[in-house]
């Protein structure tokens, strides 16, 4: 028992060290950030590094508007999460609870689309959005979210099927329309599954790199993830404290979200694993 604890403590230290080092560097003055041997707790906490990272402004790089990137990312996340939850729940309801000709084939095809990796469809999608005049706007990043995605449809469908059908039968006898049954009977019972879908689509959008890299051209419209890369390519190697502060800014919201929704997180991951 003691041995297991010892191993776990050592491993925890190994896993946490890079993160601690990131935060430690982010609070240091530039001149001591690269000192050997490493200084773990800076003599002065340079909190202004965070402000500097937010408003990075130097003659060499120009202005890197991290606050604007943050706002862009949050707006994009709201649009994607709303679209994902609404569209996938509607579609999953149809696959789970309604009978229509061709449904089972459509569902099998839906599952098959999960096999298609993004790079396969990247070129035609890019062409499509270019022809629509959407390149350089956020639309290629959020509009598709309003039209469903195979994995989320699958996840929600499995969940909807566990809700007893007697409930919707009773509502149907009471003269409820299908939309009312969906909205008032099934959806309220599916909150945990909807929360999982919302959480993971938020994460995916926050972390997405290749999407913004493809479609966002104007520096002012970048997302945080993309902005950080831009920041790194400009400032990398010159100011480690500021780069670590900027990285912390990108990571912190995710970690905070994790602490508030830990159970949901763990359930969601386990749920997505069980489908295998």
């Amino acid at each position: 028992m003691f041995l297991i604890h010892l191993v776990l403590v050592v491993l925890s230290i190994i896993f946490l060290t890079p993160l601690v080092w990131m935060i430690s560097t982010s609070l240091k003055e530039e001149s001591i950030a690269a000192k050997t041997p490493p200084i773990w707790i800076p003599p002065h906490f340079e909190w202004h590094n965070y402000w500097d990272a937010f408003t990075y402004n130097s003659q060499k790089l120009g202005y890197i508007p991290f606050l604007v990137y943050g706002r862009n990312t949050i707006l994009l996340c709201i649009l994607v999460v709303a679209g994902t939850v609404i569209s996938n729940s509607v579609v999953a309801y149809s696959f789970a609870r309604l009978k229509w000709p061709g449904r089972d084939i459509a569902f099998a095809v839906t599952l098959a689309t999960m096999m298609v990796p993004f790079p396969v469809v990247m070129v035609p999608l890019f062409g499509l959005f270019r022809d629509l005049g959407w390149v350089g706007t956020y639309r290629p990043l959020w509009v598709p979210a309003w039209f469903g995605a195979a994995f989320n449809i699958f996840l929600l469908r499995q969940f909807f099927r566990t809700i007893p059908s007697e409930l919707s039968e009773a509502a149907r006898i009471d003269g409820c329309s299908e939309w009312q049954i969906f909205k008032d009977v099934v959806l309220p019972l599916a909150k945990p599954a909807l929360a999982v879908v919302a959480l993971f689509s938020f994460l995916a959008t926050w972390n997405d790199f290749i999407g913004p890299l493809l479609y966002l051209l104007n520096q002012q419209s970048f997302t945080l993830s993309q902005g950080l890369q831009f920041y790194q390519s400009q400032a990398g190697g010159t100011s480690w404290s500021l780069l670590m502060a900027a990285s912390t800014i990108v990571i912190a919201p995710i970690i905070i979200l994790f602490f508030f929704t830990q159970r949901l997180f763990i359930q969601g991951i386990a749920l997505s694993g069980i489908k295998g």
Partner: protein
Amino acid sequence: MKARRSKESIAGVLFALPWLIGFTVFMLYPVCASIYYSFCEYSVLKPPIYVGFENYVDLFHDDIFRKSLWNTFFYVIISVPLSTIITIGLALLLNAKIRGQAFYRTFFYLPSLVPQTALACLWLWVFNSEHGLLNMGLEKLSGHFWIFHWHISGPPWLSDTTWSKPALIFMALWTGGNAMVIYLAGLQDVPVELLEASDLDGASPSAKLRHVTIPMISPVILFNVIMAMIGAFQIFAVPYIMFPNGQPAQSTYFYVMYLFDTAIVYHKMGYACAMGWIMFILIFVMTLLSLKVSEKRVYYSGG
């Protein structure tokens, strides 16, 4: 009754409509177009010209393609088994009835939350050859083990072709938290009666692990291995940021990086689509192979 059924059909199609549209526009059309483009010379400005199998034949003779394919295979073949062993190990440790399990689980999981871009920035700093934490640590370690008369100095991780891929593999091991959580869920489903029965039979812990625990979680292992292979094959963001253009000497130029550059930088759209389809076939074959190899070893308690 019939009226109700047709009403249900209409409702069903209406509810599914967003996805029927989304599937057609964002999946079916791109897949068909991508197949067609892969047989064309297509450079955005001019309409695609049909060239038959030329793109596929050219890929065979493309040194950069072969290089990126080799890099990618190297990364997949080393990182997937290593991270599988480590994440199962962590899950087994966590599954022991110990106090503070939730804390340890959180610690091991936290790195997987780090967004790819931030991950790349963070490790650029840790791997920095002069001032990076890792090499400072190695130096310190070599100072303590003075009986070894040599002096360990960390390699220049990011600028040496020998160490650039291992650096990425190391990062992959650090971010295996998702798989670990799935294994942990699988371990908690292993029937206690089975473990107790083998205790009564006097089975050693290692025998229990080999003959009870691992077979019981084998479907989860298969699932995780397949997902990890698919994910690792598509590695993009981290090397794109850490190693611009696959430096040093294209040792970190991976499949999707080349595909991305082919399309977005060189505007060879048909060539990029052909690369996409070869990738699809490779992933498909890898998945089938894992299913085939594991067929007799995976135990489904469901029957």
